[in-house]
């Protein structure tokens, strides 16, 4: 085998690649914020008394967690127009990622809420907190603090999984890679470079999430974030 690696060629396409990186970052950040917000709301609904709300949330979480992200994207991008809802590839990617991440966030935050002791809530009541105050300060924030490492792992996995959005022609990083590959015919080099970029993005995202955790919850969480077991998914 006499193959000479030529990484130099790829430099010509740095604008395409930078655009791809920027799109991946935008999609990831937006879906993390939206997905996490939905997760908090749904986990709250889930933690209320048994009823239709709980059944619906459970069904949603189970359906999303037991089907591939790629197929979810297909349904949003190719399937929805059949129902009269037509969206761009980028919007479809954002919707798909948010729907997916919301389900996982719900499940993780639910576990956090269930780990909050009844006595904590009673202590809040004894201190004369309103129900909303109890919910915010005694239940939701401590619950999220507890499961923050698992949430972070999920966020990183979502960023990595966003590469699949190239399959519905969303022009993020993996799509840039495919474009550069088709232009330069240096497939292997292109994918090595892009893989390293993803690795750097993952490390940067992990670092940033650890800093946000430090800012939000203080020292006790940041320490655990560093050794968190990833909750595996796409």
């Amino acid at each position, binding site marked *: *085998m006499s*193959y000479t690696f030529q990484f130099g060629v790829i430099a010509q396409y740095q604008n395409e690649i930078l655009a791809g990186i920027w799109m991946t970052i935008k999609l990831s950040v937006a879906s993390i914020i939206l997905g996490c917000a939905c997760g908090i709301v749904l986990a709250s609904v889930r933690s209320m008394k048994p009823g239709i709300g709980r059944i619906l949330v459970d069904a949603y979480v*189970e*359906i999303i*967690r*037991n*089907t*591939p*992200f*790629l*197929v*979810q994207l*297909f*349904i949003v991008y*190719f*399937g*929805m*127009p*059949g*129902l009269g809802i037509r969206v761009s590839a980028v919007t479809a990617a954002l919707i798909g990622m948010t729907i997916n991440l919301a389900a996982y966030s719900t499940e993780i935050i639910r576990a956090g809420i269930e780990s909050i002791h009844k006595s904590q809530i009673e202590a809040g009541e004894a201190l004369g907190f309103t129900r909303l105050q109890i919910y915010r300060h005694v239940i939701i924030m401590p619950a999220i603090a507890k499961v923050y490492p698992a949430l972070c792992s999920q966020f*990183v996995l979502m960023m*990595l*999984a*966003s*590469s*699949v959005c*190239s*399959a519905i022609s969303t022009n993020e990083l*993996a799509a840039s*890679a495919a474009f550069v590959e088709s232009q330069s015919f240096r*497939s*292997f080099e292109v*994918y*090595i470079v*892009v*893989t390293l970029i*993803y*690795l750097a993005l*993952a*490390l940067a995202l992990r670092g940033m999430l650890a800093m946000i955790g430090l800012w939000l919850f203080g020292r006790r969480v940041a320490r655990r974030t560093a050794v968190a*077991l*990833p909750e*595996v*998914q*796409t």
Partner: protein
Amino acid sequence: MILRTFGFSEFGFLVSALLWTVVLTIIALSGGGIVGFFIALARTSTHKWLRIVAATYIQIIQGIPVLMILFLSYYGLSLAGLQLPPLVAAGASMTIYASGYLAEIWRGCIQSVPKQQWEASESLAMTRTQQYRYVILPQALRISLPSTVGFAVQVVKNTSITSIIGFVELARAGQLINNATFQPFRVFIAVAALYFVVCYPLSQLSRWLERRLHARSHR
């Protein structure tokens, strides 16, 4: 062009493609299981450099998209002059992907066996291999069952990514049917439903194993 509608024969095609999804999952779990097992051993080894190499491997696999592993295996293999069917590239990349995650899951299980078990078996003059074989791994295995089954669900779902290099499993079959019928909503809901039929029981099994493990350790 004659448009077909999504009917029984199309559904039958999806079901037969589901078989390939299952085959690929089994390849990924057995291949990734073997590789991951040795990486987990290296990760818990007494040799510092072995631990570092294993930890780096795990960090890299968990820090890059499955899609990139797939492309790198696909183009890497053809670069090596091998014109192989997509199944090989798909199987190889799924194996690499699964090994990185299984290694990390099992590392956690090995390390959750109390260190007194190491001391007790060491004091009975066992070699390190005997300690693993007779004392540590049997205990780690029981702890690992729920999370391993849970990870199997992720593998089933992630095999869908191999459709992107043209391997005809369930997701790719869905695209093909969709191209012939132009009934994307129906087709992809059917595809999703088939994945669900495989994944949901596995998820429930994982949960049941988790509860059982928990009940036992609190006895």
